[in-house]
């Protein structure tokens, strides 16, 4: 649990689940939202006051955060600039709206902002990232990445590892290597299990129904932990052997490389700082822990009742969730890989509790860690401690 001086990851849901595209696997669009809203400046101001002056890593998120009007976002950023503690600012966007005007805006309002773009590798891998008519978003994201390169703006990308990329890790990384702006890649697992797709009246609701007919088991886009591990092991070999590390970092490899050396990590999946260090602010005033866990399961309280963020961080508003986290982490005791794995992602482990995938999740992580560790340079015998 965080202390009163620990830094937090703050996820600001600028526009809630509102998005200009309709990706099949979107977890935000599965959450209960009453209506479309945007995050008001008064709410952000109140939230920041409650945070005191502890350091904050702020993540602008959605839905699609670039759907917020620029003057509104400028107001939010002004409030963040006035925060008395240290801050790091980042935004995660689907990239389809990222144009010169937005780059100019960020250059002006927060030049150091880190930009993450969602792109599932190559065109074939990106087929679940579609608009409301199931039309591909790939060409628009490619255009945004080319624009970023032309402006000398480095970006990170998330590759959600769905079934569409399995067995094609080399091709996926080679395609990404064709984008000079990309300096960081995250191979994000897609372990959806027993997830219920909301029945929005969108033109592509039929394909969503085919991919996830009844919300039982694994939907048509998801992979098992072992499939993900095999993909990432293949990706690691290619990234190392083809010298792609010259061009971009890849998670989870950087984290594993650090874990085996006993170093701290920023990526939650290989860090001791987990969900309790993440606070999400929703437009309607709900405050939750990591947004990767569904609501109301992840709810911690409401902004209206908040004097200090410490009131939420002890999970007094959701002791059941705190207990589930503890039970999960207690299961790691005695594991051969506890010091390197560090418990994985709690949001990924929770849906697997009591299913055969619970053990597979751990076995897959052990396999991946061992594979990466075996592919690292060995210390010279002369330099090794005797």
């Amino acid at each position, binding site marked *: 649990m965080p202390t009163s001086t620990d*830094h*937090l*990851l703050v*996820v600001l849901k600028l526009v809630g689940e509102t998005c200009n595209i309709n990706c099949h696997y979107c977890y935000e669009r599965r959450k209960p939202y009453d209506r479309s809203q945007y995050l008001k400046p008064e709410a952000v101001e109140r939230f920041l006051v409650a945070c005191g002056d502890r*350091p*904050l*890593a702020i*993540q602008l*998120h959605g839905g699609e955060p670039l759907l917020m009007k620029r003057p509104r976002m400028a107001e939010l950023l002004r409030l963040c600039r006035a925060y008395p503690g*240290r*801050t*790091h600012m*980042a*935004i*995660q966007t689907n990239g389809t709206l990222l144009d010169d005007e937005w780059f100019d805006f960020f250059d002006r309002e927060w030049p150091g902002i*880190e*930009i*993450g*773009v*969602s792109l599932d590798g190559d065109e074939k891998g990106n087929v679940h990232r579609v608009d409301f008519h199931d039309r591909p978003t790939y060409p628009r994201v490619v255009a945004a990445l080319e624009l970023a390169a032309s402006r000398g703006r*480095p*970006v*990170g990308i*998330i590759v959600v590892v769905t079934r569409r990329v399995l067995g094609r890790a080399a091709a996926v990384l080679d395609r990404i290597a064709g984008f000079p702006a990309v*300096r*960081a*890649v*995250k191979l*994000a*697992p897609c372990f959806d299990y027993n997830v219920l797709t909301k029945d929005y009246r969108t033109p592509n609701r039929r394909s969503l129904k085919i991919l996830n007919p009844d919300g039982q088991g694994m939907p048509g886009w998801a992979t098992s932990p072992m499939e993900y591990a095999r993909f990432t092991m293949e990706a690691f070999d290619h990234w*190392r*052997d083809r*010298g792609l*590390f*010259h061009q*971009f*970092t890849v*998670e989870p490899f*950087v984290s594993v*490389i*650090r874990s085996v*050396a006993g*170093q*701290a*990590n*920023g*990526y*939650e999946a290989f*860090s001791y*700082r987990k969900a309790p*260090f*993440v606070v999400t602010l929703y437009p309607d005033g709900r405050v939750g822990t*990591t*947004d*990767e866990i569904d609501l109301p399961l992840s709810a911690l309280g409401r902004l209206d009742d908040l004097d200090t963020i410490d009131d939420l961080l002890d999970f007094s508003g959701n002791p059941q969730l705190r207990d589930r986290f503890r039970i999960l982490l207690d299961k790691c005791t005695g594991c051969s890989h506890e010091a390197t794995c560090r418990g994985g*992602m709690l*949001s*990924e482990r929770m849906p697997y509790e009591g299913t055969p995938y619970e053990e597979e999740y751990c076995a897959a992580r052990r396999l991946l860690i061992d594979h990466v560790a075996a592919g*690292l*340079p060995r210390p010279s015998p002369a330099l090794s401690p005797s």
Partner: protein
Amino acid sequence: VSDDNLDFDAFVEAVQEEQLEDDLVHEAAHSAAVSTRRWRDYSDKVAGTADRSV
């Protein structure tokens, strides 16, 4: 031993030597926006290693 192998050794060393304890790096699974500056640090280190080996 190829140059790429030597570079990878230097890359791994840069990654493992980076001190994060006082940093604001915290990445959720759904974010890729935090690490680009870290790449530059690693890249500079690898380039520096290559320069020294000349």
